[in-house]
């Protein structure tokens, strides 16, 4: 029997990361979709960086930044009592950065694809920007929100490099399933590695399939 803890930790990490990402990405994507500020291309680039950067690079810099022996990490440790390296909090922080484009991009293009007149119509009807965002814009980009949520969740499950760099492999704290697989293979425990791998494969396949079914309209007839 395999140890279920790494899998549970993986899903806990993916859930927390996805929820935080949703809260952060809606305003960020809104700003990216509608802003005309000059700084926008730079922010867009930064958001997209995790798509092309080796995860180890991000992990390395986070490790350096958050190390209590360095200025920023020391400040965090001393004043706020937060230690982000080799902790679950650090994993969440790194995962949020690493999966950011997977949440921001779908939501941003969702906003951009809406007719600008819909927003204007709501303003002319006397509704504030906040009311317009929650009552008009977000309900009309549900497929984009679902895509963002699922891609971020699945992408966080698949994390390896960043997690290993900043979290290491502390059982019950930072040893997630992808790291566990690596360790089982290193100690020639192919059966356990296979069990973890199968679970991850099945779960990610299922949730991606669900997105395509929902966004493709195949499930409409069942939930109406």
């Amino acid at each position, binding site marked *: 029997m395999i140890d279920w803890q790494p899998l549970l930790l993986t899903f806990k990490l993916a859930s927390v990361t996805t929820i935080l990402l949703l809260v952060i990405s809606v305003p960020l994507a809104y700003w990216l979709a509608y802003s005309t500020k000059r700084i926008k291309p730079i922010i867009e680039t930064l958001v997209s960086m995790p798509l092309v950067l080796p995860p180890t690079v991000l992990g390395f810099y986070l490790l350096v930044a958050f190390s209590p022996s360095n200025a920023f990490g020391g400040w965090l440790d001393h004043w706020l009592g937060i230690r982000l390296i080799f902790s679950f909090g650090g994993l969440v922080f790194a995962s949020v950065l690493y999966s950011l484009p997977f949440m921001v991009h779908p939501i941003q293009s969702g906003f951009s694809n809406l*007719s600008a*007149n*819909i927003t*204007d*119509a*709501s*303003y*002319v*009807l*006397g*509704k*504030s920007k906040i009311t317009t965002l929650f*009552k*008009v814009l977000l*309900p*009309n980009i549900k497929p984009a929100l679902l895509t963002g949520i699922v891609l971020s969740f699945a992408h966080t499950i698949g994390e390896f490099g960043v997690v290993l760099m900043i979290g290491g492999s502390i059982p019950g704290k930072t040893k997630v399933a992808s790291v566990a697989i690596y360790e089982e293979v290193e100690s020639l425990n192919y059966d356990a590695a296979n069990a973890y791998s199968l679970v991850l494969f099945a779960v990610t396949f299922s949730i991606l399939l669900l997105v395509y079914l929902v966004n493709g309209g195949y499930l409409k007839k069942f939930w109406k």
Partner: protein
Amino acid sequence: MKKVTHISISLQKQLNAAAGKMLLNIDFNIEQGKFITIYGNSGAGKTSILRMIAGLLTPDKGRISVNDKIWLDTAKGIRLTPQQRKIGFVFQDYALFPNMTVVENLTFALDKEQEVKIISELIDIMELGELADKKPATLSGGQQQRVALARALVRKPGVLMLDEPLSSLDIDMRSKLQDYIMKVHRAYNLTTILVSHDIGEMIKMSDYIYRLSNGKIIKQGSPQEVLVNSHVNAPIQVVGEIIAIENQETLQVLVGTKVIDIPASKEEIQPLSAGNKILISQKLANPIIQKII
């Protein structure tokens, strides 16, 4: 009757039109309860004017006052937001909220503490009863337009603005919707500003027309004064489009959905060519009169 100036508008803005930079510079007053049309080629700045009145676009310089209340005065730094200007606006693509049913679209428009009664009243006037629980995507163009018109009137605005609202509808539908627009214009004593390039529509509905070209008003007056050069006093007038000119003596004209042949003199035909819009005036010299059974 006393003339009451309802809206006074003066706007200047540098626009990036298709043909390059263009200075929009207009200045006019609209009387209470009038139906006015802004007419001109695409790219003349018509929609920009509506958007500036609504507060969706900021002019470089300008002043807008409505019932002596100042909506915009760039010299004094006053600029009401679109939310603060009470305006009815019907967009060219209707801009209905796809996630809401017809009745939800209307209810969304209600102000806080406004009575819900107006919703059923508008549903009656616009004959939307059977469509109330449908989503916009399932409605035809004409039906969507009626919903958009009803939604624009929920807050009981004094000013209604229509941005080419009928341009994507077929002719039968258009004429029905023109009737709806005139009905609410009168019923709610609205001051209505229409942007259009359909001449028949303007003649049918407007009291006053502004012809816009390259950002400036080049002609204004009653539809007749603006649209035809000489004034003809005739009881029956229709607008048509020339399809063909036959043998230099007959014009084939599309009026509504019908093609009719109209005899014309050489002098009349000389300046015309296919595609021109013409005003056909009929004096009742020898009318044929028949009783309708």
